[in-house]
């Protein structure tokens, strides 16, 4: 069976198979949510749907909903369903049990099962306002206790992770402030404009200001004067968010500070030695992707175009070099392909603020996207992992700014894509989480299911520049790809959020080097 056959089967299936129609209760509830709080409370208190669900009388609801289904598929109507199927036969069962679990003893199964347990045991997760069970979000959800309880501060054994409580939302951006607090923004769910401050001294996540717009998957950087630039992300309209905002730690508030031209998606930022910020991203015109670069001036709150990248790069890394230039590495080349892997770039370039130009450098030995780049204490840049466009890679490379060349730097203990890479106080580098991507696998039978698919990782490792080697260190309790990782003032590393196949996480862990 070819990919085309699978596509035909799916297309035909979806063409012929209908979906349940909305029940009157659902329509009523949607309308009720548009009314004011008092009116909504009145409706909710009298609405069987909400009241019953709170009482756990789900059977009555399902009965009501089930009787009202309009199914227009393959000639079957509601009366054609025949005898009741057992719950375990339905897709609902396989969803609830996690598909990964259905593959038995596969690596994916064991990894996917573990995070749910760890999250379930987190009291902070249960206390999160965003995870309430009210079917209709109410105003009261925003007035829950404002501080999420954190753990008692203790330093774990060297080389281990320990729980650090819940952020209360699935934030995607973390920024270390001058005073040692960590600012979290870019929530993916709940209140998308919320922000939290993590206090390493108490271990608490506390609310602070609200952004004007959502910045899910956006970027941020601490500016020279102590404020934080929060920029970009995919807003909930489905488009690129162009608005820039500044967070002032003194007031705990955000303010608007200019905007990129509409439609520009931000990939990465780098604070320059001039105090300006280099912003790089992509934009789509039809099926064509182009890269762009702009300079943000915090003083005037304005953006202006600067230079032209030598290649279209989707999600490259930017790293400030000791001489003030910025190293731009890898990324997907932005070509649109209906099938197959997207080519990852081995090329690299540097941006020189004095000339405003990009110049080719390198290239790397391997194409990389979803990789990580970390400047070492000696000024070289460690590039780890990523996808070469087909499979995840474990290899690492070192960029020497004085020669403009990449050299091999050994291999991590696992291939990792979308992992974190954090320079520790002692000059070593913590590599945590990410995603194992085996790429296309030639297999047959049941074994195939167990072998394919990406797996989010709990493992972590340390790169030691002195030996040039990677070695395993303690593992996280939760597998995380695209986690936010921050070196705290006390030398610990806060690793927070990230994804698994079950969705984004709201909890955090602390690594004690």
């Amino acid at each position, binding site marked *: 069976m070819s990919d085309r056959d699978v596509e035909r089967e799916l297309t035909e299936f979806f063409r012929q198979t209908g979906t349940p129609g909305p029940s009157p209760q659902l329509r009523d509830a949607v309308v009720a*949510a548009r009314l004011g709080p008092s009116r909504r409370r009145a409706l909710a208190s009298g609405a069987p749907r909400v009241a019953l*669900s709170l009482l756990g009388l789900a059977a009555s609801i399902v009965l009501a909903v089930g009787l009202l289904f309009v199914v227009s598929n393959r000639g079957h109507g509601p009366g054609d369903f025949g005898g009741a199927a057992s719950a375990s036969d*339905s897709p609902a069962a396989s969803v609830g049990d996690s*598909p990964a679990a259905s593959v038995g003893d596969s690596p994916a199964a064991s990894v996917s099962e573990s995070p749910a347990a760890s999250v379930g045991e987190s009291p902070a997760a249960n206390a999160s306002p965003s995870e309430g069970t009210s079917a209709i979000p109410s105003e009261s959800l925003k007035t829950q206790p404002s501080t999420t309880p954190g753990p008692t501060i203790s330093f774990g054994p060297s080389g281990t992770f320990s729980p650090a409580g819940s952020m209360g939302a699935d934030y995607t951006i973390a920024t270390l402030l001058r005073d040692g607090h960590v600012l979290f923004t870019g929530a993916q769910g709940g209140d998308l404009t919320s922000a939290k401050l993590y206090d390493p001294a108490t271990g608490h996540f506390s609310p602070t200001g609200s952004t004007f717009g959502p910045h899910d998957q956006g970027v941020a950087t601490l500016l020279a004067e102590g404020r934080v630039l929060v920029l970009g992300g995919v807003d909930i*309209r*489905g488009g690129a968010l162009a608005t820039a905002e500044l967070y002032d730690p003194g007031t705990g508030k955000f303010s*608007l500070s200019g905007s990129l031209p509409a439609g520009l998606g931000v990939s990465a930022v780098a604070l320059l030695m001039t105090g300006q910020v280099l912003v790089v991203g992509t934009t789509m015109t039809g099926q064509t992707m182009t890269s762009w670069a702009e300079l943000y001036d915090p003083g005037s709150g304005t953006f202006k175009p600067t230079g032209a990248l030598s290649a279209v790069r989707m999600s490259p890394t930017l790293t400030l070099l000791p001489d003030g230039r910025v190293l731009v590495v890898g990324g*997907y080349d932005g070509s649109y392909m209906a099938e*197959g892997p997207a080519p990852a770039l081995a090329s690299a370039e540097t941006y020189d603020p004095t000339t405003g130009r990009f110049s080719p450098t390198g290239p790397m030995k391997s194409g990389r996207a979803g990789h990580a780049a970390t400047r070492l204490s000696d000024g070289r840049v460690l590039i780890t992992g990523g996808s070469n466009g087909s499979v995840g890679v474990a290899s690492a490379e070192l960029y020497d700014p004085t020669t403009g060349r990449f050299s091999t730097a050994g291999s991590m203990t696992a291939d990792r894509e979308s992992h974190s890479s954090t320079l520790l106080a002692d000059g070593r580098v913590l590599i945590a989480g990410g995603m194992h991507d085996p790429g296309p696998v030639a297999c047959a039978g049941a074994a195939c299911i167990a072998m394919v698919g990406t797996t989010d990782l709990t493992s972590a490792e340390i790169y030691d520049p002195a030996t040039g080697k990677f070695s395993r260190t303690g593992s996280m309790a939760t597998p995380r790809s695209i986690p936010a990782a921050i070196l705290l003032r006390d030398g610990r590393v806060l690793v927070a959020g990230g994804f698994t196949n079950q969705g984004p996480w709201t909890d955090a862990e602390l690594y004690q080097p």
Partner: protein
Amino acid sequence: MATAEEAFVANARTVAPEDDAFALRSDAYLDRALGLAWYILGDTHEAEDATQEAMARAWKARRSLRQLEAFDAWIDRILVNTCRERLRRKRLVREVALPPDAEPEAVDRFGALFARDSVGRALGSLSLDQRTVVVLRYWRDLSLEQIEERLGWPLGTVKSRLHYAHAVLRERLERDEREVQR
């Protein structure tokens, strides 16, 4: 001269769609919303709750939608995120068995029909991410870029999830065929 904040508010007031237009668009979307939630969650009751929650969130955030043309992508994203959160919450909540006399009605009848189809069963074996991408691609007929927008993933991730979903589906369908032939 207006401050940036004042300009933002003024802009929102002048460009934001009228509530009536938003409500009409929401109502017209409800069927598709429930369908998408059903395919992601695989359970009618859960899908209804998720749809209700997502629509309420969308209403609260309606001022951030400055172009009604972008409504579908905007609300799809809210809905997908809501479904993912609900799946997570579901794993945190202990399930309570229904009383025996409620059992026949408690069965998700649409799900039962779904389970009788080999493609339906194969879809049920996909991971959450894989199934979401497949549904958006083949049920919603969206391009990979449109899926990228809705899920907020890099294009490569969307392609990767779709690629592996194909592999799993192919294996499941071929296995079903072999069993039928025996």
